[in-house]
């Protein structure tokens, strides 16, 4: 069975797609996050059709097939050397293992294709649901809120949509232009940098947009006159000063790991870890917790990578973006 695609009637002209990061996410796991968004939107929450992208099933297929983690030693080495100047060995190992779990699927072209197809299938269904609700694609206001590895899949899927006419989802040719794409704790630059360091090891490299292009850019398509039509009217990047997945190590930004798309609205939250333990040990524990693959994403405010905390800190802005 292919991963389930959600379909629903739209209450108005707006929809939100949530794209999670690492960790199994099943129906119902995001109820707390939805409740948080509904609280932020207030009475306007009823105007939105809410969707979730589920792709962990595919990750599980490939992990079970190939024994996940085999062959990532060179990735871990590459990451360790990059992070060495900003971290202790213990934290460097934790970051490397974290990034390894994020990066190994890149080495399997079929895994990348399967996840990307899942994403684009869901986007097509969202557009179809809007059409069935009497809202033409050009009038649809769809927002994507992505977290962690979900940002990487979003970036790749939107570039594929913008560059492949057969997907039926590009902004200039098919009039499918998103209202907002909000990246939270995006590892896109981290993945791009490390993957470029081992690019000969990446199959079908040309089909990996974050690696094949010289620099990262927000997806777009040009019209007949050569004008660039962006895939999203607004692109936002939110991360934290202690979130290494978003490119920060103890308050310092690492250019090689921080996603900085031209024209993105950037937000870096000041973060503090709680507790008496050394900061490195705490952060290491945080990263290991973020790798949890047998449970839903927990709402843990002390975790600098926590999705819910980013949403809470930017509640008013999110409300403004979604309702604009």
């Amino acid at each position: 069975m292919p991963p389930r695609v959600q379909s629903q009637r739209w209450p108005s002209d707006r929809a939100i797609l949530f794209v999670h990061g690492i960790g199994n996410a099943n129906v119902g796991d995001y109820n707390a996050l939805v409740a948080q968004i509904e609280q932020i939107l207030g009475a306007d929450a009823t105007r939105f059709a809410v969707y979730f992208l589920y792709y962990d099933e595919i990750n599980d297929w490939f992990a079970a097939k190939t024994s996940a983690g085999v062959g990532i030693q060179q990735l871990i080495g590459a990451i360790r050397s990059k992070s060495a100047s900003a971290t202790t060995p213990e934290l460097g190992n934790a970051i490397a293992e974290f990034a390894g779990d994020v990066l190994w699927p890149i080495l399997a072209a079929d895994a990348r294709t399967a996840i990307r197809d899942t994403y684009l299938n869901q986007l097509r269904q969202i557009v179809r649901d809007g059409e069935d609700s009497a809202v033409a694609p050009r009038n649809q206001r769809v927002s994507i809120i992505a977290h962690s590895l979900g940002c990487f899949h979003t970036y790749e899927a939107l570039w594929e949509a913008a560059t492949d006419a057969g997907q039926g989802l590009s902004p200039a040719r098919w009039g499918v232009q998103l209202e907002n794409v909000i990246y939270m704790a995006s590892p896109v630059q981290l993945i791009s940098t490390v993957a470029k360091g081992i690019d000969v090891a990446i199959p079908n490299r040309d089909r990996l947009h974050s690696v094949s292009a010289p620099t990262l850019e927000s997806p777009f398509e040009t019209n007949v006159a050569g004008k660039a039509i962006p895939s999203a009217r607004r692109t936002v990047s939110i991360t934290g000063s202690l979130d290494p997945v978003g490119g920060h190590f103890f308050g310092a930004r690492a250019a090689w790991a921080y996603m900085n798309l031209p024209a993105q609205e950037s937000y870096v939250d000041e973060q503090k870890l709680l507790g008496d333990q050394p900061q490195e040990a705490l952060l290491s524990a945080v990263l290991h917790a973020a790798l949890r693959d047998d449970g839903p994403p927990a709402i843990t405010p002390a975790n600098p990578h926590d999705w819910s905390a980013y949403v809470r800190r930017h509640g008013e802005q999110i409300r403004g973006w979604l309702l604009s």
Partner: protein
Amino acid sequence: MRQFVLAVLVASPLAAQDAVYTIEDILTRLQAGATRVEFARTDATSARMLDSLALLLRARGAGGITTRQMAEVIVRRRASFADVARWNPEGDSTTALLAQPWFRDAVLMLPLIANGSLQPELSARLPRPAVDSILTPTDSLGRHVRELTSARVAERFRHFEIKYGPSAPSLNAVEVGLNYLGQWIPPFRSSNGDPSRYEMIASYRPLELTLARQGGASAETRAVTAGQLGVRWYHWNARWGAGNVLARMLRPRHASAGLYALAPVEKPLQKPWQNGRRLGAFLGWGDFHAAYVFDRPRSILIGTSKHILPYAF
């Protein structure tokens, strides 16, 4: 013109989705809309391109081609004669037209002009219902493209599940390495996003069973060690790997073949590839395989492809 526009405006959006639109519908409405907003003054290039395409497509008799047929050409990237003959069983010049490489480029240009250039001008000058009416046939094309692509992706997912899903054979560490390298080697690499039906096998089988053995030695069944080096292929046909237990045994989802090496000492957990090994060939059908060792003493063996120790053997 006013009566035409008014008649379209009262049609419901959902009814419009079920209507059959043609290239002529797209061209007529886009050109009418372009005239209404004086498109040639704001974007002369796109306006000229629209008129040129209209001339070309009408001159080639493409007016009657439906948006569904156009979408088929777009999604499949290159239509064969068999494809277009199926779309147009009467078989006339339309068949030849749909198969022309330039035709795909032309039909792709229409929505690019409509949505990428004309639509902003329309939306700036006309009320939304009028804009929607002008672009309804173009929207129909987009809808068909998305439907056909999703159907195609669903078929590809079925292949993914056959090869990688929960009931697919898992790979040991050596096979992971070989198949990782195979991503660059035809026929093991994927093609146009579709997974390859082939997979390399490099297995260690510690518990094979001898069925028959040449020579005067005792012919009792014994457990021996063997190694396999070969290729597995997956059956994409939906009838294979489906049905009851017997049906799945007769038509399994995968088969395999390759080189077989029997360890010199006929016992479990030996090293099959060392000196003194006896070589043969194996043929696998689903999770089971049979082998014939042609080095003397010749033997016939059977075994299972299931891993006894996950990711190892």
